[in-house]
């Protein structure tokens, strides 16, 4: 090595694969940081970038409208947009992306922002006929199904999306059954006590919630009714029950969209592994200079997890990544403290907001308000150390936990 500083010149052509929130915001951050080379965005969907969180909430009630959902632009991008186009392969040595149009895009800076896609039900038939939610078209189809007279709706999976869909469907007057394999809704993200609160909330609004339960089989629509028959099995194997549903929504979480990277040599098994600058790593753990990963697809070191890598599928994480990744590509690594993970979900009229990684805690403490009033603040600690805080209908109260959580994230940042 001639020098310990990166001798790479500034890139002249940055290709962004993935044209949703993370890709768009990274492109913007590049321009804001002064990048004046060519910029190409490749997006699998035919639309300009839009905001996904409303797809399980208001947009599901009113019907998704691209004009409302479009992500506003902070800066003039002066970019080439290749929409309705997918990347199918990556050559990191030759620095080229192969597209499904057979075109090869040469780059000297690459942003991997392909996001994640819904995990499908195992059965082909059920998978084809059930709904899931990721795209505008998905939300549009489910909106259509829910716009009809009160129906029996089965939601499989009570993570954030499934819980929100169940809440929205119940608010529209549908009879909702919600099935969750773990002991409670969003239990991995919130821990048992807050999950139990969400379970009570669902049940108080008429949602028939089955926890520690899986769908053993899901029959295809039969006869004129076109209804599904689902057989539910409790984890203990002791009880079986069945549910008849007109509409089935699978919300089994998402898997990172990395099929196109299988032959690339990148460590992309469970999301693209990165270092703390968001530079992608190959399967031997070497950083691939000029290649960064952002948003849902990126598996990044987490200070709140002691530096272990994890994918964080939060909206705010995608935005935070964008600035850091742009700085890395331009040889201006971010010096600012990393933004805390932050998330929200709206269910049955309760605004739940969180910061940090509450799921990493082992103890829940209500520090303000009361769960029965639907107005409270809870902390989550691990070994006595704060790792996250969650507020119901009291977002302003989270402010006071910020500095303590931020001190953890900055204190454990590895030095470059």
């Amino acid at each position, binding site marked *: 090595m001639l020098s310990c500083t990166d001798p790479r010149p500034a890139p002249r052509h940055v290709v962004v694969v993935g044209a949703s929130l993370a890709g768009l915001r990274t492109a913007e951050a590049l321009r804001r940081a002064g990048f004046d080379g060519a910029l190409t965005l490749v997006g699998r969907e035919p639309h300009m970038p839009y*905001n996904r969180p409303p797809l399980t909430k208001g947009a599901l009630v009113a019907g998704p409208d691209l004009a409302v959902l479009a992500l506003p632009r*902070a800066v003039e991008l002066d970019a080439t947009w290749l929409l309705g186009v997918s990347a199918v392969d990556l050559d990191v040595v030759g620095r080229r992306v192969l597209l499904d149009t057979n075109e090869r895009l040469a780059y000297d800076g690459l942003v991997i922002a392909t996001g994640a896609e819904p995990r499908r039900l195992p059965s082909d038939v059920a998978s084809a006929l059930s709904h899931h939610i990721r795209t505008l078209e998905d939300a549009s189809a489910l909106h259509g199904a829910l716009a009809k007279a009160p129906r029996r709706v089965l939601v499989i999976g009570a993570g954030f999306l499934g819980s929100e869909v169940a809440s929205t469907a119940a608010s529209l007057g549908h009879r909702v059954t919600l099935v969750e394999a773990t002991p409670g809704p969003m239990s991995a993200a919130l821990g048992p006590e807050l999950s139990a609160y969400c379970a009570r909330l669902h049940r108080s609004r008429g949602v028939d919630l089955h926890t520690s339960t899986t769908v053993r089989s899901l029959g295809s629509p039969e006869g004129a009714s076109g209804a599904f028959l689902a057989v539910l099995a409790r984890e203990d194997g002791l009880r079986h029950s069945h549910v008849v549903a007109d509409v089935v929504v699978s919300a089994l979480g998402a898997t990172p969209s990395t099929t196109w990277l299988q032959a690339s040599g990148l460590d992309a098994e469970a999301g693209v592994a990165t270092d703390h600058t968001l530079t992608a790593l190959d399967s031997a753990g070497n950083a691939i200079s000029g290649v960064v990963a952002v948003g849902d697809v990126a598996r990044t070191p987490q200070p709140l997890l002691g530096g272990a890598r994890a994918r964080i599928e939060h909206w*705010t994480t995608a935005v935070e990544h964008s600035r850091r990744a742009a700085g890395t590509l331009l040889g201006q690594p971010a010096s600012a403290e990393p933004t805390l993970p*932050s998330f929200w979900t709206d269910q049955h009229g309760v605004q739940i907001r969180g910061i940090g990684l509450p799921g990493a805690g082992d103890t829940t403490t209500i520090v303000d308000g009361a769960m029965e009033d639907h107005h409270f603040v809870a902390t989550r600690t691990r070994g006595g150390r704060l790792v996250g805080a969650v507020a119901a209908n009291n*977002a*302003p109260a989270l402010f006071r936990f*910020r500095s303590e959580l931020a001190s953890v994230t900055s204190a454990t940042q590895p030095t470059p």
Partner: protein
Amino acid sequence: MRVTVDFDRCEAHGLCTLTAPEVFSFDVRGSLRVVEEPGPEHRAAVEESVRMCPALAVQVTDDRTRSDAVVH
């Protein structure tokens, strides 16, 4: 620089109060307070708030002419 919050869109995520606490804050009742014409030293933080707002409710305009107070 003029900062506006579309309160029809605002969902009280409060991320702006984290990224630009000198410009955005919650009062004791939990209502969002906004310094509508912050000094130029706050520009970077305010622009970050625009990008970080999940409800897409924060906007910045560069209208140099001082607009009169709008009466609702």
